């Protein structure tokens, strides 16, 4: 037990536990008939939601490091991204295999009939090269191209959140219906993306340093008084 905690950080452990337990819980609920009266739809929706959550978490790492100098987060990005891809893959498999029973003509008709599925499928296909090239060998082999390739996530994430929002009942532009959760995810991603714009990032970093400086100064003063 001690070894686990010395080898892995608490953040790392929490991340792996979340990612795997969610899957175990889903499988358990599926086989014990605890996924509502419409289990296939429930599986589809829940795997999709986990994928989006993990994706948003992976995107949160860099801006949170900018804000709080929490550099460990940068080491967790890859695993979070891969877990998001894992859930996205399961989500797509359920859609194709269970929901539509591999009826390809119906699947293709459905995809092109419904813009939210076109958007979701596009986002998923764009995730595949990122997942494949996420390993160090590819990072070395691709050099600068690797960074550019992985920056496409800034396009993919909004696509997938649009897919999520569009799949819900309601109307985004009228602010009506089931829009709260996708709206929150969307706002988080937009804020994170703004944080990444170089001038904004620089401004935030200097603001952070100033706050840290003031904070230290204030903490130091009482100490000097007491001496």
């Amino acid at each position, binding site marked *: 037990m001690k070894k686990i905690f010395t080898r892995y950080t608490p953040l790392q452990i929490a991340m792996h536990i979340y990612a795997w337990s969610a899957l175990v819980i889903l499988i358990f609920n599926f086989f014990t008939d605890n996924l*509502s*009266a*419409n289990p296939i*739809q429930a599986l589809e929706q829940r795997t999709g939601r986990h994928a989006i959550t993990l994706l948003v978490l992976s995107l949160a790492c860099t801006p949170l490091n900018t804000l709080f100098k929490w550099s460990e987060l940068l080491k967790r990005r890859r695993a979070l991204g891969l877990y998001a891809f894992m859930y996205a893959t399961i989500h797509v498999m359920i859609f194709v295999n269970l929901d539509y029973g591999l009826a390809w003509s119906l699947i293709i008709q459905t995809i092109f009939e*419904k813009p939210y599925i076109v958007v979701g499928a596009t986002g998923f296909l764009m995730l595949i090269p990122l997942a494949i090239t996420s390993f160090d060998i590819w990072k070395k082999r691709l050099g600068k191209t690797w960074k550019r390739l992985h920056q496409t996530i800034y396009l993919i994430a909004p696509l997938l959140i649009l897919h999520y929002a569009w799949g819900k*009942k309601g109307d985004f532009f*009228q*602010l009506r*219906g089931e829009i709260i959760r996708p709206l929150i995810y969307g706002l988080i991603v937009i804020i994170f993306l703004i944080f990444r714009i170089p001038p904004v990032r620089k401004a935030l970093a200097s603001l952070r340093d100033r706050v840290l400086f003031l904070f230290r100064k204030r903490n130091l003063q009482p100490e000097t008084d007491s001496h």
Partner: protein
Amino acid sequence: MHTACLEMTSKFISIPLKSSEITPHSLYLSRREFLKAAGLVTGSALLAACAPQATATAFPVKKDEFGEPANSFEDITHYNNFYEFSENKEAVNKLSKDFKSHPWTVEVYGLVNKPKTYAIEDLLKKFQQEERIYRLRCVEAWSMVIPWMGFPLASLLKEVEPTSDAKFVRFETLMDTKQFPREGSHLYPWPYQEGLRLDEAMHDLTILATGLYGQSLPTPNGAPIRLVVPWKYGFKSIKSIVKIELVDKQPGTFWKRINRKEYGFYSNVNPNQPHLRWTQVSERRIGEFSPRPTLMFNGYAEQVALLYEGMDLDVNY
């Protein structure tokens, strides 16, 4: 004899029973046993007359006219779209436990000669309650077979005598944030409203349902009284009705106000009319694994297609 039993149960419709006290497979008997145990039933002669039949046939599975078995009481009452309680279909049953569907009145007014406010007991007494086993096709591409108890809406409308100006019927759900917490949300145009053309409302298939599986209508299904229009998508069948108004213009409806492109006034089940979100070509019957094809007018084309003769269903969706 069977109908005698049903009538009997409907007379006791105002007795508050928790659905959890009834096992899904032996509904009739368990209800009767519960009533007997509680000492509420005195009509023992009628009860005795019903009992032998019930035990002899071991509760035949209820089936629709295609021979499709009805969904279980458990599924019908635990998978409900009822946004006044929650957006989560599985949460509705629990959240609706404290709902008071008694006392309850339904006001029938507007372009009628004899407007009247009916207490729910009056509606149950006045109109013969009969069982109708209908398919329910949700716009979300799932479906169920449900054994409703109720009476034709036409019987009620005939009572109030619509004037010649009346062209549409407008329905309204109870507006009460104490009872329906989500009605406080600004994301939806409360109260829930629905509408039918007068000829649709007068059609024999259109009923006001007051019960389910022979017992009073459970809250998740729209207690104490809801509309059931089996050839239209489920959201047309408005729940917990307090107002029925006869009007001369097509009334606004809840989902159409939210997204007019996606939810038309007619919303007839139509596999040829694609929806932006769900496939309407096929559906998943709750309890089944593989999807099955969706039928025009939900399989009631023979009875209702005439209503829409000469209408372009692509425009009037």
